[in-house]
């Protein structure tokens, strides 16, 4: 998995590329996410357009980021969720936990 990041209007956008299944890929995403949180960046969007699937380890990383951010007055939102991940969010009822958007622009705009 490759991971790039950028900032759009004060919102951090993380862009993982590849499947998230555990091991080094998952560690990378977890560390990057928490690195931004430590820098007091409280608005984070994860663009999932290039992640075909993830397993429960990937979901756990998203939840860990979301919980930490919410406890500090921030929020983590998801953009461009692929079909398989959407179906996993539905199966696990995490659709009720995450805010999802059809584009990065919409996700970023939702922070205003």
């Amino acid at each position, binding site marked *: 998995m490759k991971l790039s990041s950028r900032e759009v209007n004060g919102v951090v956008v993380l862009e993982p590329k590849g*499947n998230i*299944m*555990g*091991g*080094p*890929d*998952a560690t990378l995403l977890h560390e990057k996410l928490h690195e931004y949180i430590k820098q007091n960046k409280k608005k984070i969007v994860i663009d999932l357009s290039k992640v*075909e*699937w*993830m*397993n*429960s*380890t990937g*979901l*756990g990383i998203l*939840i*860990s980021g*979301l*919980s930490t951010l919410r406890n500090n007055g921030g929020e983590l939102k998801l953009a461009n969720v692929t*079909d*398989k991940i959407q179906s*996993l969010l539905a*199966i*696990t*009822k*995490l659709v*009720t*936990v995450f805010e999802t958007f059809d584009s990065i622009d919409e996700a970023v705009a939702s922070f205003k």
Partner: protein
Amino acid sequence: MKKPVKKNNQIVVPSNLDYLAEVDKFVEKKLKKTGLTKSQLADIAISVTEAVTNAMLHGNKKNPHKEVTIDVEVKPTEVVITIQDQGNGFDPEKVPNPTEGDLIKVAGRGVFIYKALMDKVEFSIKPHDGTTVKMVKEIKPEKK
């Protein structure tokens, strides 16, 4: 990193999550010509990585000297995958339903997910002789 042992339709890896990608690649290669859709292949990939993760972490308790064996059997109408650890008998059925209670738990969804994604899942638990998870995906055109 030690090389995984591959033999026909079997791959054996140490209990280290760094091997997950290798297992995923091996299974993907074995299922290439089965006619399974991209979505069905993703269901299998997710399920295998879940079961192998559990085998490494909960079955073998991350003991690097204990291994996880993955067998892939392609039949005309179904794919059968078995994942076996060398632990003391981890009972996946005892994992609580993650959709009840606190939804924000970081872990505990693996078994629930592969039971939902695969057509059949069976467990065989032998104390002192490990847990075997047998999962089946039927080869059939996906419903639209």
